[in-house]
Structure formats: structure tokens, C-alpha cells
């Protein structure tokens, strides 16, 4: 380009183009910002970080709970028909309000709040750096004015700060640094092969409940008492797991593997070991929530709401379940089968590191299914391919409850739970889910299903 004037003209033109992005009206850019795919991306990002950082299932459920709460609360001021959960969620006070008369892009505030809390509660900030670098650029591209972006981001951060303060008082900190004492008493839990990891989160029942009144509100009936006399109810439970293990069908194996959701499977071969990491059960159900939202073409607000309520159901489910796990402190099938029946028997799935009763996956799947059923209706058939990237296949279900029941039984097929822990766990979870709906979602649900 030899001509300096031509050079200047081209430069000027470029400047003009850059400064004159398409002027969009608030209606236009808000509509684009409210493209639900943006929120789905954020949730997926959080799931990836949770997998990378290796959070145990209960801890992961807590992270999802606060992140989705932040995303929800930063959205509702601009979302008629949706209300803040202040006063409904235990000890949750009203977050800061947006400045009246100012223009906001609430879907942006929502993602900002979600990501800020996500980053705060996880470890690998660099993973969020990479994600957010491009993520916020999208809002410029769809024409959200610079100052609206700034204001909305700031609002999202203010909500996030409020949520973090709320999170700071849930006893999470106070429950760090404790371990479960293994007593080796007959019938009680002991660490399991191959990694013999410590029992996860022995004080989780002390975490503040989300919606439930107390951790033991939905205490399941007592588990079948430990008794290895042939023919005793417990013996029958053990024998069932063992028999299923040695006569496993391909379908049972597929089912078990599909719902494995073990955050940290240790592959051990001599000195060589490496972890296979997957979504936690909670992460799996949020992924299902995403699938359904897409399938049902749910809008931004409804998607956010579904994530949020599902997260609470899952989080309370874990508190309720963990309360029982460390009360009953029941032995795992692998331990008892090895001791009394077959020392070489190994379950198809790796036994997760905490007591057996009730089954965490059963409880939280049922709780999540209740919430999704309320929001989207019963008998919503869907195909779940979210586990596909982890090599776990694709499965179709008639309904959410159907999926929850299958998730529950998968633990029996996997050889890591007894039948009563599944069936009673499923009931326990349903009650948790119903209570979450009862307290938080009844009114909205009516709107949503109309």
C-alpha cells in the first residue's frame, strides 16, 4: 500500500466499522443475550472444572447449589413471573437490587454471577480464565452497549458476593479437617479396594440444609441389621448382590456403567495408577436438565430455574443421605462378600469411599427427578447422551422418574449397594424433591406447566 492517503482511508474505515457495531435495542440484545445456550455453556464449564478438580459428590452438589442460586438471583429482577428465593431458602436474605431506572442485561448479570461463584468455589481459576476470555465478547457482538455490559457484570458480581457471604456461613469451613473414624466393628464400613480411600465428608450432615428443615427430616427406616446368618434378611441382600455380580447380563452392565458417575475411579495396576474422572451424580442430573431444556425449548429463565431447583434437590439429597450414611455406617457389599462368600469377588463398579446406606445416587436422582417432573411434566421421554463423552453410551427413558429408578438399581447391578439402600433411598429422595417443590416451586410450576 504505497499511497499514504489510501492507507489512512482504509484505517479510518476500519475504525468506523469497529466503532459502529449494529446498534441494538434493549429488546433486541436482551433477547439474544437470553439465548439459553449461553447458560448451558456456563453450567457445562463448571462441570468440567469440578471434574478436573476432583470434588466429591456432596461437595460438588454444594458448588452447583450456590452457582445456580447466583445465576437465578441475578436474573429474576428482570424476569417477571420469577421471584427471589430470599426468605424461602434457609437463612437466605435478599440479594442487592439493581439500580432503578438503569438499563441492565440481566441474562448477562446471571451468567456473570454464576461464573463468579463457580470460580470462587472451585480451584482451577485458569480454566475459567480461558472460558471467560471469549465468553463475554459475545455480548459485545450482539450489541449490548459497553456501559450496560459493565453495569450488568457489576450487578452479577454484587449478587455473587452476596451468595458467597451466604455460602460462608453454611458450616462448610467448620467441617474441614475431620475424618471418619474406622472402628472395625462387625458390619461397619471400612475403606474399600483398590485405593482404600478415606470416607468422604463424614461431617456433611452439619452443612446447612438448603430447603429441608433439618438433615434428618427425611430419615429413612433403619437398614436391615447386619447378620450373616444364612437366610437372614441381611444375608439375602448380600447374596443378591453377589449372585447378580456373577450372573451379570450385558444390559445390567451397561446400565451400571452408564450411571457410574464416580468422580474419581482409580485404575491400579501394580505401581501404575491413574484416575478416570467423570461427572458426579449431581453433575449428571444437571446435564439431563440441559438436555431437557434443549428438547423442550425452554427459555433462559426456565432453564436457569430448572438448574437451580434441581441443584437444591440434589444438594439437600446429599445432606439427607450423608446424615444416614454416617448414622448407619453400614458395610459395603464388597467388604462383606470378600469376607464371607468369595474373597476374590470384585464389584463391576469401583466401590465409592463412604458407608453404604442409603445410596446417594438413588436419593439424589429421585429428588432431581421430582423437580424436573414438576417443571416439565411427567412422562417426558428423553434420550440422555451426556455420558457419551465419558465412554458410557446413550440411554433413553420414558420419564424422569423412570431414569431415577434405573439410576437407583444401577448401583445394585454395579455391585456397590444392597437393594434396601436403593429402594428406601429412592423414597427418601422423592420426599426431598417433593419438599423442595413444596417450599420453592409450587406457584412457578403452575405457570410453567400451563
Amino acid at each position, binding site marked *: 500500500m504505497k499511497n499514504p492517503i489510501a492507507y489512512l482511508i482504509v484505517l479510518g474505515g476500519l475504525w468506523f466499522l469497529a466503532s459502529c457495531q449494529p446498534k441494538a435495542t434493549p429488546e433486541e440484545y436482551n433477547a439474544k443475550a437470553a439465548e439459553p445456550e449461553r447458560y448451558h455453556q456456563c453450567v457445562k464449564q463448571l462441570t468440567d472444572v469440578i471434574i*478436573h478438580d476432583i470434588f466429591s459428590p456432596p461437595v460438588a452438589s454444594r458448588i452447583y447449589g450456590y452457582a445456580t442460586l447466583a445465576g437465578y438471583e441475578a436474573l429474576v429482577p428482570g424476569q417477571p413471573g420469577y421471584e427471589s428465593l430470599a426468605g424461602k431458602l434457609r437463612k437466605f436474605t435478599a440479594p442487592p437490587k439493581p439500580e432503578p431506572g438503569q438499563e441492565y442485561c440481566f441474562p448477562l448479570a446471571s451468567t456473570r454471577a454464576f461464573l463468579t461463584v463457580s470460580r470462587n468455589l472451585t480451584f482451577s481459576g*485458569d480454566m475459567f480464565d480461558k472460558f471467560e476470555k471469549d465468553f463475554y465478547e459475545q455480548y459485545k457482538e450482539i450489541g449490548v452497549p459497553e456501559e450496560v455490559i459493565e453495569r450488568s457484570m457489576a450487578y452479577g458480581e454484587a449478587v455473587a458476593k452476596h451468595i458467597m457471604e451466604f455460602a460462608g456461613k453454611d458450616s462448610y469451613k467448620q467441617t*474441614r*479437617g*475431620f475424618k471418619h473414624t*474406622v472402628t472395625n466393628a462387625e458390619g461397619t464400613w471400612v*475403606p474399600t479396594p483398590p485405593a*482404600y480411600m478415606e470416607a468422604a465428608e463424614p461431617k456433611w450432615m452439619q452443612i446447612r440444609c438448603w430447603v429441608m428443615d433439618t438433615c434428618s427430616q427425611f430419615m429413612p427406616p433403619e437398614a436391615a441389621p447386619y447378620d450373616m446368618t444364612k437366610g437372614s434378611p441381611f444375608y439375602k441382600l448380600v447374596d443378591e448382590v453377589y449372585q447378580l455380580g456373577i450372573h451379570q447380563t450385558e444390559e445390567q452392565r451397561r446400565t451400571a456403567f452408564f450411571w457410574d458417575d464416580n468422580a474419581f475411579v482409580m485404575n491400579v495396576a501394580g505401581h501404575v495408577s491413574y*484416575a478416570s474422572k467423570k461427572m458426579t451424580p449431581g453433575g449428571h442430573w444437571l446435564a439431563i436438565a440441559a438436555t431437557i431444556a434443549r428438547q423442550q425449548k425452554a427459555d433462559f429463565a426456565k432453564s436457569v430455574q430448572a438448574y437451580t431447583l434441581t441443584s437444591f434437590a440434589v444438594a439437600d439429597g446429599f445432606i439427607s443421605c450423608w446424615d444416614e450414611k454416617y448414622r448407619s455406617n453400614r458395610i459395603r457389599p464388597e467388604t462383606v462378600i470378600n469376607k464371607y462368600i468369595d474373597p476374590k469377588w470384585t464389584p463391576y463398579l469401583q466401590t465409592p469411599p463412604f458407608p453404604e446406606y442409603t445410596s446417594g445416587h438413588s436419593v439424589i436422582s429421585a429428588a432431581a427427578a421430582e423437580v424436573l417432573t414438576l417443571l416439565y411434566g411427567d412422562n417426558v421421554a428423553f434420550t440422555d447422551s451426556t455420558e457419551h463423552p*465419558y465412554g458410557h453410551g446413550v440411554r433413553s427413558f420414558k420419564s424422569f422418574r423412570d431414569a431415577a429408578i434405573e439410576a437407583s438399581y444401577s448401583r445394585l447391578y454395579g455391585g456397590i449397594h444392597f437393594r434396601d439402600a436403593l429402594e428406601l433411598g429412592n423414597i427418601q429422595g422423592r420426599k426431598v424433591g417433593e419438599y423442595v417443590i413444596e417450599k420453592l416451586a409450587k406457584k412457578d410450576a403452575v405457570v410453567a406447566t400451563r
Partner: protein
Amino acid sequence: MIGQQCSVVLREDSFYMKFGYLFILILSLGLSACQSDQPLFQKLDAGQTGVHFINQLQETEQENILAFEYFYNGGGIAVGDLNNDGLPDLFFTGNQVENRLYVNKGDFAFEDVTRKAGVAGRPNGWKTGVTLVDINADGWLDIYVCYSGQRPDALRKNQLFINNHDLTFSDQAERYGLADSGYSVQAGFFDYDRDGDLDCFLINHNLKDYQRKEAAVMRTERDYNAGDKLFRNDGNGHFTDVSEPAGIKGNPLGFGLGLSISDLNQDGYPDIYVTNDFVEDDYLYINQRDGTFRDEMRDRIEHTSYSSMGVDVADVNNDGLPDIFTLDMLPESNARQKLLPWPDSWNVYQAQLLNGFWHQNMRNMLQIQQSNGQFAEIGQLAGVSNTDWSWGTLLADFDLDGYKDVFVSNGMVRDFTNGDFVKYSDEAEAGQRSPIELIRQMPSTRTKNYIFRNNRNLTFSNQQQTWGFDETATSNGCAYADLDNDGDLDLITNNLNETARIYKNQSREQTQSSYIGIRFNGPATNPFGIGATVTVQTDSLTQTQEWHPTRGFQSCSHGDLRFGLGPQAATVRVTVQWPDGKRQEINGANLNQVLTLDYRQASERSETPKPSAKPFFEEVTAPAFTHTIEPTNNFDRQLLLPMQYSYAGPRMAVGDINADGQPDVFVCGTTQQPGRFFRQTSAGFTPLLLTGAEAGKNTDAVLADFNGDQRPDLYVVNGGYEVRETALLQDQLWLNDGKGGFTPQPLPTETDNGSCVTALDYDRDGDLDLFVGGHIKPSRFPAADESFLLRNDGKAHFTRVSLGKLGLVTDAVPLDLNHDGWPDLVLVGEWMPVTVLMNQKGVFSAEKPRTYETLAGWWNRIEKADLDGDGDDDLVIGNLGLNSQIRTSTEQPATLVYEDFDQNGTIDCFMNYYIQGKSYPAYSRDEIGEQMPSLRKIFTNYQTYSDATIDQFFAPDVLQKAQKKTINEVKTLVLENRDGELVPRPLPLQAQYAPVYGILAHDFDRDGRPDLLLMGNNSTMRLRIGKIDANHGVLLNNRGNWQFMPVSSTTSGIFVKGDVRDVKMVGDYVLVGVNNRPLRVFRRSR
């Protein structure tokens, strides 16, 4: 450690001790450095030697470290004279590549004769260990090569290359019955049944990693491929597998990696040590002299390496008894300690014990044989515990000073246990990667082989730099031989993916040291005399070697024996004991020659056993009493705790409670059993329950007269780290009714976790007052509870006088240090300096204690005695000792940095100690992340944590405000009371074998000077500190002038394993209180 060399050892001990451990290193470096600028060993160039052998691996989709976990174990070496020309030749095994045989042409020139010799090995076979043996007793060495790998059985048959006397060989393994097709690692040949010919022991390994849970069942099984085997030589050119009748374990848990043969128990019959990788215990097969073996591991050894690899057995302290050295994987540097896994879960460890496995920790173990056939493990004290991923070790006198040094080959092609690989190599596309891709993700770190000089005092100093091993290598098999016949031992290593190395030893060139070599002309059925034991004596030294050439990993050193004699040797006496017990003695052998010992010159006469003197004490039947602690795990309460505090006691108190002139004893109680008396009678001790006493944790007690009726009353301190109910912390007082009955008496209310009590009349009003030391505030380590005085009104009515929080006080003695007539108090404790509370006419100035800041230690006990006979009491203070990873000095202290940093109501306490000149946290990234999840945000992976110090944990101002405690002295010491000052004096190294928790000053040998019996151990330290248990009752003979000499347990008569928490003299008896074990009683015998 008895006999004429002791004075030498002791002198050096005390000399070194004065200047600290570090000084030994400097001194040794200096010694070697001033001899020559050249390193002791010179690595020879392959171009010069002609030895170009490379054990090259090809990683394929089918064959790799994920498919075959011993893919990187490498090959072996055999050194020996295969053509009988007087020069040792070299044989290397290749895993995937062909074996190589090099003939020694002299002057370090070698010729590859593999092809002609026909010893390249079976095509497509995976070769492992190699052993030289004259199997047909024709005077020519044959070669036995082991096979393993993921290959069909037919490719795994071991080969026996019979020497055709012309450097050609024929495989006749089938004919001899030795074509075993298990997964073989190494064979050793020895005459276990003393029938004159050589039998064969073969170690095998499994391919599949069985889990601990299956152990009990697995142990009852025999696995042809994985089980070790004993083959008896039938004497007709055939061997028979006699493993099962001979008591050799053959279970599928076996991952045999190392094999040593030695007559460990000196009964003339060879024994076997087998190292096993992973969970299976090592085996210590003691020859029962009837054709069978018994694994006496648990009877003789208290803990072993975890992933045991190479092993060597030799006498490293020249006491005539073979010692055992096993290798593991603990790295020396902090970075690698943090990057690679180092077991840290107490629960996992307990599960392992419950599943029937023995105590195993991840580090090299040096087991020093004691006079009674028991072993004391002192690898950390000796300085040889951390040599990274180690394969082979050779204990041999490389510098010809008369003491065996240590060589360790190490190296791992890939760090497949790297924490970041284990946790983060897998993202999203799990299970979809090809093995080769996964393997490429594994980091690779090259390490240096280790060589240590024997400091002649049970410690060793690293000579990697000065002895020529300052470059990295991946070495597996290793062997030594005098390749150039100049008198010193040269070293050879078989390396992975790089040329094998030959190191020329230049001791003869660089030093004035003499040597003597020994060659054997054995009996007809064992021409090389395998199994002979040779003792070489000079004026100052007696050395012993056993002639068993299977040494080094998968390797065989079949040269002549070499004895270094140092520069001063003049006359030499050589004694040989042949495998059948015949003996021969040669006086005045010439130096610097190879002496051939001829079996035909030996005679039947056996050595007349020396009459052993009667020991000072003899064990007698103790009253049936087993101290019992409720199983618990303090690490569940405070997961960064340095040790468990619930496993405390029993301490004891002595006094004549029934006025029969015979002192009795009170043994403190636990939550499982009330404290109780044992009354001394003519028959020993009979229990006497304290009426009304309930089960509760008594941390200490004292028997003394508090109400002036001349009868000892009982004060009991109650405490405990785990106690939640403060009422349980209330101490108790029992008054003696004069008939041996006791009635409780009220005391001022208190809720302190007391640790110790001592009675003294501090206000000089004629009655005995009490000092009670405060220990850890329950569940709040390292926060301290209060110490206090109880002032007596003469009628056993006490008033509490608080002394405040003086630290984690563990023990106290009254001592009038300034001779003003008012008893002062000397206190010791954990993470605190020796502290003196001066008595100012009945008032202790607790605010201004006299502290000995250079004596900040992990003090457990204090005792007083007039050790130098100057009329005042000196002090003995029991510390952590030197047998752990924790080393300290004033410049390099261990520290506790603590505070409730995250304000969650629990103390976050981080212990730090120096590693290679820098202070690092003593915990893994996982552990600190569990304590404070926020730290995981700072250390997002293992790499970022691998060089982290406590400064990176917190902002400078936070750290500034944090509380600190330090330790700069870990040695157990005596303090000379010199004109009111306390002057530290060193003790022999044996005093540092383990933490000391029991001190008895008593004149054992009746020479007028109190001797010291030190006892202790700690098996409930956090796993990485590990079980420290090498103190079996260390008796130190007071020789006067602050010289102490260790006395063997054979002489003392006192030998106790376990965590001793108190030792008391009760009349003519010594009582030993052992935690969670029975009470032990010893009676004076002379």
C-alpha cells in the same frame, strides 16, 4: 558393639556428636577431597572397554508399562571368570535385546564373544536375572538365566548354559530340572541341606496385582508362575522342586524382586531373605536344619520396606553379625517427595495390618542385627533411607578402609506415579486413549545412582560427587569385581536405554590402603566353595564376609572376596569356615595378594564357643497385666497431627505402700482398665486393685507422703488428648491408711490435660507439694493446657497455684540448680526448650523461666542422676532421636506454624522441617488441601506444590502473626550440672535409635557409676515419620568422664520390643511398661 573395636567407635561417636550430624558429611567430604582431586571411581568409556551393551526397550501397543508392570525393571549382570584365565568376565542380560558376554582381556579391555558362546538367549524371550554357578562341579562356571515377561510359557523357561570349557555353552536347563517357566527374577545357589552340593532358590513374581483383601486366601494357594521355589540338588545332575515340603511360600501374592543368602543366625546353615514388591511381606526364611525353612520375619524384624526391591546382606558394623539392607522408592529431594506418592493414610495402613500384612513403610531399611538375632532398623539414622526408585544394592568395602560401603543403582524411565499424571492425565476422553499416548504423558526424571561411605559409626555419608557418581543414569542390575586385579572392587551397572557402565575403582591408586583377596578351592561337589564364611583380623579390625555371589539386583558378583585393610594393617589373620562347618585359620597372611583357601587344609575342629557371661538381669514372669488402649485414630480429629497422642502410657510410680520394706508399684490406668498396684512379695508381684478407682486415662502418678503419716499416698494425673468431658481431666488423690488401703481425698477442681507429676517441698514448709505439667489442650494440638503447683498445708489439703501455659510439658524433675537450698524445677516438653523454673524462696517465676533455647526439642522424659560423681545431680533428657526424616539444628529448626487461619474454629497446624537446606511442609498437597481447601487454589497441581514452602501458604502479614514453635535438637542427651549451668553432653548413637520415653539411671555393672537404660520407640507417628522401633532397651555403660559405651542386650539381659513408656527400678526388679502390651519384669541376676 562389644569387644575391642568399641573404644574406636565410641571415640568417633562422641567426636561426631559434638559437631552434629551435618558435620559428618562435611568431614567425610573433606577427607575424600583431600586425598585426590580425582573421584574414587572413574567411569570408563565404552570405546575404550569395548562394552557397548545397551538394554534397549521398544515400547509397543502390546508391550509397555501399562500392560506389564515390570517393563522397566531392566536387566542384570554377572561377573565371574568364565574361561579360567584369572580375569572376571562380564555377562549382561537384555530384556528384549540379546544377552551379551564379554571376555576380559585385561586392562579394562573386553571382547564380545556372545555369538560364538551361544548365550544370547532365546529369541523373543524376556530375560531378567543371571547367576553364575559351577553346577556340574567341573571347576568351570556355568550361567543360569531367568525369564519373565508377557510371553507364552515356552518362551519363559529359564536357561542353564553349561560351560564347554572353550567359551562355548550348551543350554541344559531341562536336563537339570531347572527349566522353570514361572515369571522368574533371580536364582541363588547354596547348600541349604549341607550335603555338599549346591541347591537352588528361585524367586518369581506375579503379573497381576492382587489386592490386599484377598491376602488371607491367597496365602494358602500355590501359584506355579508366581511362587518362589527351592530346588534340591539330587546329586545326580538333577534338581527336584521341594518348595512345599521345605516350607517355602509359593502364593500368588509373591512379587519377589530380591534375594540374599546368608547364615543370619550363625548356626552354620544358610538362611534366605526375599524381598517382595507391593503388599506382600518380605520373607526371612530361617533354615531349620532339617531340610525345612521357617519365615521368622515377624519374630525378628519390626518393619520392612513397602515396595521392597533389591537387598543385600553383609556385616556393615564389623560386629561379626550379618545386617540386612532393603531398597524402596523414597526420594531424597522434597520436590520428588511431593510429586510422587508417599503413603500417608493411617486407615489404609491399619487395613493392611488387619489383612495380615506386616508393618511396611516406603523407604530403604537398614536392619542391624543385635546380639540375640533380632534386628534394629536404623536406615534413617544411618542416612541411607532415601535413594529414590532403587533397584540394586551392594554392600562392599569400596575404599578399602575395612568397613563396607553402600552402592545403590536406581532410576525409572518414566514417573508413572507422578501425582499430576495420576490425577490429571485423564480429562474427558477417558478410556479412549491408546496406551502409548498415555505413557507419553508420563513425566520422566533422571536420577543419580547413590554411593555412601561407611563412617564406621553406623552412619554413612553420600559420596555421589566425590566418588564419581555425579551423573544421572537409569541403572538396574549392578555388580562388583576386581576387573583389573589391582585389589579394589570395580563397579558395573546394566542400564536401560543407555550403554552399560563400568566404573574403575582407583582406591589402590589414590590411597595407601592395603587389601587381601580370598579365593576358594572348595570340596569336590562345590569347587568354588560357595557358602564359606571368612573372617579377616588385623590389629584394629575384624571383618567378616560370606561367600554368596548372588547380590545386586538380578545380578551376581562372582569375583574373589576383597577385604580392605586400611593404611595401617601389618599382620593379618584369616579364618574360614566352610559350608560343612570345617575350619581353617591362617596367621600372618601377606597383604595385597589373593589368598587361595583350600578346603583340603581345613579341619573338623569347630571353634570352642566362648563362655558367655551371665547377664545383669533376667526376665521373670510378670503379673498377668496387659496395658490396653481403646482403638482410636487421633488423625481423624486433627489430620495434620505429627503423632497420635491417645496411645500413651503406662507410666508407673514406686513406693512401699504396705510398709513391708519392699517397694511396690502403681501402674497407670486407661479408659479400658483402672490403674492398679502391684505389691512386691517374695514371689514377685501380685496385683492389688485400688478400691473405688474407675477406668480412666492416668497419664502419670506419684507415691509420696502428703499427710505426714510416713505412708506413701497416691496422686494420679488424669488427662488424654481425646478426652471430651472435662470432668475426666480431674486429677485424683488417694490417702494411704497404713495397711495398704487407700481412700480418695478431694482436690481443687481442674480441667487441664496433665502429663506428669512430681513431688517437691517447694516452699520448704516440711511437707511435699506437687507440680503437675500441662500437655496438649484436648484436640487442639499444639495449644497447651496449664501447668500448676499444688501447695500442701501438711494435711494433704492442696491449693492450686497456676503457672500458666508453659508449653507441651511432658516431664519434670526438681533440682536445686543454684544450690540455694530451694528446689528448682527442670521441665521438658514437646516443641519447647529445656526450661528451668527457678525457685525464689518459695515462688516460681513462671513468667520468666530460664530457657535453653538451643535445646528446643521433642522431649519426652527427664531423669536425674549424678553421672560424673561430683555430688550433684545431672540430667538425662529423652528426645525424638535421629532415626527419622526430621533433622534439626539451630540454623535449620523444625517448626510448627499454627493458627486458626481459616477461622473455622479448628487449629491449622503445619509442621515443617529442612530437606536439603530448605524448610518444607511435612505434608502432601492432598493433606494440606483437606485441612484448608483454600490452599488448593494456590497449589492447583502437584507441580506447583513441589517446591512450596509455608511462606507461599499465607500472606506475609498473616504468617507474621501466626504462632510458631521450633525444635532445633532431636538427640537424646545428658546435661552436666556444672556450677548451676546445664551443659549438654553427647551419648552414643544407639541412644538416638528411637524416641526415648523411659530412662533408668542405675549402676548395672556395680562400678560405682550410674549407667543409663534408655527405652522408648513410637509406632503411632504419622505414617511418613513412620514407626520408629529400633530401641530394644539401650543400656549405656557409664565409663566416667562423660564417656558412655553401649552394652548389648545379651549382657544387659533386658530386651523389649514395642512402645515403652516407662521403666522403673523396684527393689531388685526392673519393670517395663509397654504401651498396649503386657508389663515386663526383669530381676537382677548378679
